[in-house]
Each structure stands twice: as C-alpha cells, then as structure tokens.
C-alpha cells in the first residue's frame, strides 16, 4: 500500500492546508484508510466546502415545513396527516462517462434518499441539460441517459411524471442529469439518520459491496480534463430490481418499531453514512468490516469504506428487534448483516481482519471540515438589445420555434418513461404545466415541476435564480395547486474562479428573494460544482424542483384547449426580447438582460389565477415561458387539438415583441366566462386582456394568416425522432 504523505493526500484531492488539518486532528500520520475517509468527507460533494456559506442564506422555514435541509430529503406537511418528502440530486459526471448507468444510478440514489425517510416514492422527475445536438457525442449521451432513467424508474415502478430538457453547447462535455424523487409518509412516521443507543447494532442491508466507484465523491468534485478517460473509476452499475426489493423491505420494516436510525449509502458509501449517522447522534460507531457482505474477494478496508456500490442502506436497530428485521430482509432475498455497534466514544473505529484500520474522532472530522469563503466576481450586466426588426414574420418564426430542440415535443423522451404505474397520474407529461399525482385513496394530489432557464442565469445570475424559483411556482399555480416548497440542484462551474463563485452567490440571492416573496422555502437540495470541460464552464444551472398541493385532484386543470372558449392573458406584457428564444433562434443572438422578475406582481397574478381555477372559471391554463405568448397558444392548441383565432396586439407594441416576448409573471387562461374573469381582474388590479377565442383546426393570426394544427404538430414532433431513430442501433441495452 502506498505511503501516506502530502503527495498522496493531493492525489486524493486534499490540499496542503487540508492535509495539515488532518495531521492536527489525528496527532499522527493517518493510515491509508483514514486518509481515504478524510478525503471523501472533505470533498466538495460531501462537505459543501465552497457552497455552504451561501446555502445558509436560503430561507428554509414555513409552518408546513417538517424537516428542511440537513436530512436525507426535505419534508413538508400536505394535509390528511401526510407529508411529502422530496429532493433532487445530480449525477452529471457519471452520466458523461457512461450515460445509461450514470443516469440509472442517479435515479436509484435519489429514490433511496427519499424512502430512507419512510416515504413510499410516488413520482420521479428529471432535469436534463445536453450539449449541442450537432456535437458528435450528444446523441449517444441523450439516448443513454433517457434509456437509463427509464430503465431504472420503470423497473422500480415509480412513475416518471415530469422534467425538463435543454440543449446548449456549454454542456457538450458535461451534461447535467438531475433526478428528483417525491415520496409520501405519515407525518408521525418519518425516519431520521441520527444514531442513538449505545450498544445498538449497526446493520447493513441491500446489495453486496464491490469495488464500484471508489473515489466517486471526489471525482464528482473535480473538473474533467482530457485525461478523464483514464481516471475513470469502476463504473457503478445499477440494479433496479434490488432497489425495488429494498423499497418494499424497508417500508415493511418501517411499519414496525425496529428502526432507531436509517441512512442510505450514497456518495462515499459506508464512510459517509456511518460518519453522518454517528456524528448527528453525537455518539461513536465501531464497524467490523469482516461482516460486510462482499461481492469480490480480498477487498481492503479502504475499498470497502469508499465503495459506492449501489442499493445499500445502513440502519441502527433496537437490539430486541434484530430478528424481526432479519426475517423481513430474508423474505425479500436481500443481504442483512450486523456490521458493528454504536459506542459512546465519539469516534469511528473501523476494524478489518482483527486490525484497527481507522480510528477518527467524529466531531473534528465534521467541525473542522474545510469551509471556504471563495472570492466572488459579479457578472457584468448585459446592455439592452435595442430595437429589433422581425425578418421572417410571425408564422415562420412560430414554426421554427415550436420545432427547435428547446421547445419541440418531448414525446420521444416521455414515451420511454412509465408515467402511469401506480394508477394515480392525473396529469401526465405534456398535459399540464406541472405533473399532478393523486394520493392513493384520497382526493388530495401533489403538483410537481422542475424548471430553470440557464440562459437567463448566465446573463444575470440574480434575476435568473429568482426566475427559476418563480417559474416553478407559476407552473404549480397554473394547474391550480398551492405551492409549498422547493428542492434545488445547483449546477455550476469551477468555484475557485471568482466569476463562477459570483454566479453561484448571486443565483442564491435571487432564489432566496423569490422564496421569501412567494412563501416558498427550500427544504432540500444538492450542489454540483466543477461542471467544466477544459476550462469552459456550463451555463449556470440552478435547477429548481417545486412541489405544491391540490386539496382535490379534480380541480386540476391542464393545457388542452377546447372549442368555444375565450383566451385571456394575465400579467403585463412589455415585449421583452433580451435572452429570448426568438432572439436566439430567429436572429441568432444570445444577448441582452433577461426579463425582469417582479415578485410582488408574480404573487398577485398567481394568487388570482389559482383562485379562478379553484372557483371553476378556468377550462385550461398555461404559464408563459420560453417562446412567449404565441408559443403558449400553439402548445395549448396542439394539446387540445383545437385551433384559436388571435386578436391583434394592443397599440404601441411590435407584433413580434407582443407574441414572442418573455415577460415574466404571465398566464394564458382559456375560459367559458371571460366577462366574470375580467371583472374580477379589474377589481383586483390584475392586468388581464382578451387575446382571442378557440375553435376550428387552425391557428389564425391577426391579419388572417392561418397555420393548420397539423403543420404545427408536424414541426413540433419532428426533431427527436428524426435525430435519434433514423440510425440508432441499440447494441448495449
């Protein structure tokens, strides 16, 4: 085994200062295994050393929040004595190396974070960002990631009900795969990870340990260079069948009183789970690795402690319930092993073959973990884009926009995800702004969405951060739900660069402002830094996962137009084209400031729309986002196979700005009772204007140009199937 010294510490990703700190804590040269424990616990991924100072500024409280950040997932009360438990997590780097397994194990990992708290997972979502479709690698990555998400989620039987997909060259060498899981538990049956009870057994369940993904946590915390192909550790392969068994077995055990504490083995596997459980409980832990179920012969303590083999959990049990627990796991054909016990030493002691391989005091390992106040540089404000002329007209622009990769139909993707398993999916992907999933046996339903507009964040991180939170809130509102809380996944570049850290800090600032204004706290999240390839960062991408609740699933509205309705636009339209998709797709310019976000107006407009939905004045509703008003009309028309006739824009605004501007805080409502709706809007000072009527099978623009729904649909549907299926052979899965 290699000599432990500063050079080895550097290889493990510890700086000279950090290594010195290890020496100070230990009072001696650490063993190889100890150095491994420090390196993964102090990695960016586990310690949040660059981001922590900023994350602390996020609002995390509300009367309905049961557990905010700090647990495996966030927990909010949703009524009927139930809690929603949810979190989002990234698997960006693994998905670049091996797209199928990287994405699949990402789904597996986030599922475990949720069911480890006692929740039955009821929905998955995913926020994906890929490189330029023309880049030679992108297609393979998209194909593998989509198959991987489906392969895992379909098999475990959790419906995949939503998500988002963007393309941009900045993701060419660094796709983003952010997976979100939502589960349901009784509010008085939530399981936490703080260990307790001196002498209580520490139990390992699930799959056996192999040499999978060793140093995955540190890999996720370093940027990719050209040599990353050689550096790749053994890729983790997911086993969704075992995950399914693990869900059922854990939930069965959780119905008893056997569990004192439970934690999934995620990044840095046995190390982080045992260290965190003991640390949170203020106790010590002793592990005897001889009892760890092993898949491969001759594994060292170091390998077992750092292995990231999937589908494993660690629990502390009541000693008198060990037999009940063992019987349940045996019934489900899963490994069950007592691998240690809780001590009062405040230390983690790891034995293997009778030798103490690690003996580390837990408090300093946590308290003295590095914490960086990294320098930040503010992103320069973008100058306004100035007046624009419309070179191609509304019709051509609309057809181009609905067919572009960022706006085209996602059916090719969602058709590969089982969205109906469970029998509770009220709004499937594409049917509404947020997915709606009813709670089995109840009227109550959850509304779920993920959103972020990275080009806005790049142009102005604070507004972009605000916008991302506001857009999720708007999407939940647009189905009639009461937004409750968010989870986030902060995907950024290299934090040692002041401009990247500046993006991070500003995005957090904007997110926090939106959370406060909308009463919409952050209850869980994840940070993924070093998303760069050869020095070029990705667009800053704070993906937001929003969760809301509907007291009655029957109140939910979708996008689909029906004939005989009036279209009413809620919110103020100035025709903001900076950073719009129209500007990028039609003029080829990625410029300007993003649309401003007026949080007070956002809230007023949203509360008005939700009230109208809940009083049954709304037949269909869609928030206005990428592509603006005309794209929203087109999407609603296609969803309902019903055309619309649009009024001319008000005086003083150019048609292309009116129809494609991306002003925030707006909704398009289709209603049978426009009169009542407009009166209500006026009385509450909500900007509202009739913009057209529905019917027929064409979209009729002001001036009489008509676009048939079938031609719109053809453009909309074309991109993915043409890109993916013409040539693609499926050799590996």
């Amino acid at each position, binding site marked *: 085994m290699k000599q432990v010294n500063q050079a080895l510490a550097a290889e493990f990703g510890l700086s000279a200062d950090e290594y010195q700190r290890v020496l100070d804590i230990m009072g001696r040269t650490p063993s190889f295994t100890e150095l491994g424990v420090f390196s993964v616990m102090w990695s960016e991924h586990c310690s949040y050393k660059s981001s922590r100072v900023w994350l602390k500024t996020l609002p995390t409280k509300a009367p309905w929040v049961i557990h905010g950040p700090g647990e495996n997932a966030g927990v909010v009360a949703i009524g009927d004595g139930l809690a929603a438990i949810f979190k989002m997590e990234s698997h960006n780097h693994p998905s670049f190396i091996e797209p199928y397994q990287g994405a699949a194990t990402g789904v597996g990992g986030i599922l475990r974070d949720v069911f480890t708290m006692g929740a039955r997972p009821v929905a998955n979502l995913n926020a994906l960002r890929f490189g330029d479709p023309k880049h030679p690698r992108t297609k393979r990555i998209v194909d593998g990631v989509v198959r991987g998400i489906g392969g895992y989620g379909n*098999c475990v039987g959790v419906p995949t009900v939503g998500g988002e997909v963007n393309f941009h060259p900045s993701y060419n060498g660094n796709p983003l795969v952010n997976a979100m899981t939502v589960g349901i538990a009784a509010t008085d049956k939530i399981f936490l990870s703080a260990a307790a009870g001196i002498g209580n057994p520490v139990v390992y369940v699930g799959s056996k340990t192999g040499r999978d993904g060793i140093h995955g946590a540190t890999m996720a915390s370093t940027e990719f260079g050209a040599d990353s192909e050689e550096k790749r550790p053994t890729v983790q392969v997911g086993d969704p069948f075992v995950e*399914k*068994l693990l869900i059922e077995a854990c939930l069965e055990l959780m119905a008893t009183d056997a569990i004192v504490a439970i934690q999934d083995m995620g990044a840095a596997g046995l190390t982080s789970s045992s260290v965190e459980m003991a640390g949170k409980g203020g106790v010590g832990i002793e592990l005897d690795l001889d009892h760890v179920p092993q898949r491969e012969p001759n594994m060292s303590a170091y390998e077992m402690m750092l292995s990231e083999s999937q589908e494993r959990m660690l629990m502390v049990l009541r000693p008198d319930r060990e037999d009940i627990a063992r019987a349940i796991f045996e019934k489900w054909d899963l490994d069950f092993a007592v691998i240690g016990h809780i001590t009062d030493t405040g230390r983690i002691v790891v034995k293997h073959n009778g030798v103490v391989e690690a003996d580390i005091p837990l408090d300093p390992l946590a308290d003295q973990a590095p914490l960086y106040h990294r320098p930040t540089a503010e992103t320069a404000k973008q100058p306004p884009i100035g007046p624009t002329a419309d070179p191609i007209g509304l019709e051509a622009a609309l057809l181009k926009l609905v067919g572009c990769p960022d706006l085209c139909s996602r059916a090719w993707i969602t*058709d590969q*995800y*089982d969205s*109906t398993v469970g*029998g509770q999916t009220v709004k499937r992907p594409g049917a509404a702004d947020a997915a709606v999933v*009813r709670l089995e046996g109840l009227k109550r339903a959850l509304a779920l969405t993920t959103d972020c507009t990275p080009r806005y964040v790049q142009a102005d991180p604070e507004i972009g951060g605000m916008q991302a939170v506001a857009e999720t809130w708007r999407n939940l509102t647009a189905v009639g739900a009461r937004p409750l809380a968010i989870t986030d996944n902060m995907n950024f570049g290299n934090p040692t660069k002041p401009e990247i850290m500046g993006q991070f800090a500003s995005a957090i600032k904007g997110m926090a402002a939106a959370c406060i204004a909308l009463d919409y706290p952050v209850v869980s999240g994840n940070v993924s830094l070093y998303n760069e390839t050869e020095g070029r960062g990705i667009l800053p991408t704070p993906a937001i996962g929003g969760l809301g609740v509907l007291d009655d699933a029957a109140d939910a509205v979708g996008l689909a137009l029906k004939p005989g309705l009036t279209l009413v636009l809620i919110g103020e339209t100035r025709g903001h084209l900076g950073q719009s998709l129209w500007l990028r797709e039609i003029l080829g310019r990625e410029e300007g400031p993003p649309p401003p976000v007026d949080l007070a107006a956002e809230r007023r407009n949203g509360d008005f729309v939700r009230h109208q939905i809940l009083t049954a004045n709304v037949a269909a509703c869609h928030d206005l986002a990428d592509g603006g008003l005309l794209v929203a009309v087109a999407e609603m028309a296609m969803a309902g196979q019903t055309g619309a006739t649009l009024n001319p824009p008000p005086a003083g605004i150019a048609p292309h700005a009116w129809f494609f501007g991306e002003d925030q805080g707006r909704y398009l409502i289709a209603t049978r009772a426009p009169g009542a709706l407009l009166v209500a809007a006026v009385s509450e000072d909500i900007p509202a204007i009739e913009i057209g009527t529905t019917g027929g099978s064409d979209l009729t623009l002001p001036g009489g140009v008509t676009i048939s729904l079938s031609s719109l649909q053809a453009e909309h549907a074309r991109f993915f199937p043409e890109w993916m299926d013409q040539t693609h052979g*499926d050799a590996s899965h």
Partner: protein
Amino acid sequence: MQAAIVVFPGINRERDMAIALELATGHKPRMVWHKETTLDGIDLVVLPGGFSYGDYLRCGAMAAHSPIMAEVKRHAARGGYVMGVCNGFQIITEAGLLPGALLRNAGLRFLSMDCHLRVERADTAFTGHYQQGQTFRVPMAHGDGNYTASTEDLDRLEGEGLVAFRYAEPSGALTTAANRNGSARNIAGIFSPNLRVLGLMPHPEDLVDPLMGGTDGKPLFDGLAAALAA
C-alpha cells in the same frame, strides 16, 4: 367474485390492479405472495404487471417457476379464471399456459403511451361488457410486448377465435402504425381454448377513473365482476 393478485418480487402494478378490482367488485382482492402454494376459494387469479426478477433473463422467465405457479396451473386446469397483464402475460406464456412469447418491442424502446384495442369477441367473461369490434383506449408500458408464435399457433388462435384484442386505430382499422411493438397480426391479447385464461399487454387497470383520463378499461373489470358473481 373473489380475486387474488399474485405478488412476485419486482412486480409493480399490483396496487393499480387491486384498485381496479375493488372498484368493480366492491371488495379488496387477496394479495398472494409468490411462495404461497394454495389458491383455495379464489375465482380469478391475476398476474399483474411489473418487472418480476428485474426481467433480467427474459421477461417473466423466472417468475414462471415460482412455487405459486404450479397452483396457478392447477387452478387453470380446474377451469378457474386467470388474467395476466403485461409482465403477467409474459409469465403466463413462459409458464406455457398460453402459446407464444413476447419479444423486444420492434423499435427496441420502452413504449409508454395510450394505444387502442379492438375487441375481437364479446362473449367471454373478460369482454362481456364491451361490444365485439369496439375499440377502446388503454395505456401501455412495456419493453417486451412484441407477441410472436409459430405460424401454426397463430393460425390456430385465429381459427379457434382465441385472439382477444388487437392493436388498432381508434376507427378499428388494423394498421402497422397502431401496432407499435410489432406484434404478430396486431395481437395484444389472447385466450386459452376454454376462454378462461386471458393474457394481454396493455393496462386496462390504469384507465378506470375519469380523473386519470378515462374509464375505457373499466368494462373489463365490470364484466368480470358480473360474469363471476355468485
């Protein structure tokens, strides 16, 4: 009617099925663990959808050898009713209760979407609440639903009127486009010769509630409840 749903490790649509059966019969079906060995007092045995044993070797192959399957075969031999949906259909064919096999979908991708089924005969316990020739909408969600059988078996199924459902256009037309997984002769479901064993790929149990987008699947369960009442 007393129904039982067999729970194999990896199955994941047993809850959906229980909801649909309860809706039609007014009481909860019995959940039977795959290691149990008796189905006494059961009128209808349902093998639900999912990924038994991860579908790792072939879909349904390992579940077909579970202890309960011997009893399911005896139940069928006694003239009992059996319905296998999706993975359950795959298990039934692997167990030899119905002929043929389910191959990978022709496009090699998982297919999760609504499809339309044409009812080939309405004089069975499973289809009594549909009209012959009627089409109905139903979700499907599978990677291996491409039904295949020897030409002789296919001809026999056709000749004896044992094709239950075919993938069709909403109009009832049998097109290649409607047959997304590439099944032989658009076959989506088949009966045993005594019409008491049904295997089908799509999921009628997931379309029994207007809130989930429709009730096109409900007549199948209502029909069963009516036919097996007593």
